[in-house]
């Protein structure tokens, strides 16, 4: 189970990669495994902003539907355009090509309570 050390994690299994004041957000390898085959990602194409702890979309997998929770607040810069037709990238490359959205982080202090890779490993019982 891959849990990269350079990312921060939420209890709801999102990851965020912080580059300056930009954040790239996705779901973890563990989460995609629990969901199984992802069929659609429903994130509004015109999504303007996200608020920490609030849902910003849903993932439809064969077995179940799951909400996506924002790890921080911010302005949305980009929604991964590839997911429109290739939602399965979330299964095959959850930390790479399967990223969900890019945001401009509104308040970096909001990142303080996110989990480290070690915390997250414990959270999923690894």
């Amino acid at each position: 189970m891959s849990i990269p050390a350079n990312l921060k994690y939420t209890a709801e299994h999102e990851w965020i990669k912080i580059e300056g004041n930009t954040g790239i957000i996705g779901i973890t390898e563990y989460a995609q495994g629990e969901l199984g085959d992802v069929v659609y990602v429903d994130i509004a194409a015109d999504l303007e902003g996200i608020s920490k702890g609030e849902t910003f979309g849903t993932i439809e997998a064969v077995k179940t539907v799951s909400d996506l929770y924002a790890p921080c607040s911010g302005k949305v810069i980009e929604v991964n355009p590839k997911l429109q037709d290739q939602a399965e990238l979330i299964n095959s490359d959850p930390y790479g090509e399967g990223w969900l959205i890019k945001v401009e982080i509104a308040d970096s202090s909001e990142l303080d309570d996110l989990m480290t890779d070690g915390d997250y490993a414990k959270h999923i019982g690894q």
Partner: protein
Amino acid sequence: MKKTKLYTAHQKYGAKIIDFAGYQMPVQYTSMIAEHQAVRNAAGLFDVSHMGEFFVRGKQALDLVQHVTVNNAALLKPGKIQYSAMCYEDGGIVDDLLVYMISQEEFLLVVNASNIEKDFQWITSNNTFDATVTDESDEWSLIAFQGPISRGVLQSYCDSPLELEYYHFMYAKVCGIDTLVSRTGYTGELGYELYIKAGEEEVLHIWDSLYKTSSDKGGSLTGLGARDTLRLEMGYCLYGNDIDAATNPLEAGLSWITKLNKTEFIGRDALLEIKNQGLKRKLCAFTSDEKIFPRHGYSIFKGNENIGVVTSGTVSPVLNKPIGMAYIDSRYSETGTELEIEIRGKRSKIDIVKLPFILK
């Protein structure tokens, strides 16, 4: 939780295991979609040992079967199988099942795992005949082997020619082990169901042999997840989703197995009454051109009127579009009717279509 005799194989092959109907069963091995495609294009191997097997034996075995099931078992011959259902007095469905005629005085009833106790209780409590009913579910393993290459692969391990017609069975040795070979399945593909009354080692031997040969040709181990999407593409009912005690076989589209003109059976009077009054709702198939994922329980609307509820839904791996079944008010159940489905407060267009979703 019970384990089937193939449980160690599921672990060995890396299955994701879930609790299902009191059993620890594989829901998927790698990917539900890949497993689904493997069955459509090559073959898939399913452990369905959790299904229930009852034997009805005795001079009046046929009379008991006729009394508790809706199809006409008198039309069976030894070696023939019939899809049927059991109803309560009010026409509600106890379960759907397969009826195997072994001889005039011996029948095998194959029932859903989640209903084993309920069904056994129901049949025995209605047994006023010179017949005995035994629940032998724990003794039998059941492997479904489904897909276009299944016949060739199975033949290479079977000591008798596989010249079975659909819904027929025979006794043969598979890998040298006594097996009831049944030309049935829940996928719409050419396929077989193998009933094996043997130990873990023998059952594993058959499983591994079929897997080894079919995996070289694109075959796969297949979990309950793909089993569900495969049956839904064909529009086959699933007990607990599409049919249950609150639904009757006529509205469920099962009038083709409900022989109201045969001899008396439990539920017949109620079903005749329901038929005479006209169906209020019908189980309909629908598709959509929108990017939606229909699921059990979602509501269906015509304008502002809630006129139906989804019983099963998925995104078809073959059609790559949403498919589903729903009970729809009969006024709107015609093929071609445009309706709306509500998903998390948002409406999307759906169209009523004919089954099956994919032509085989």
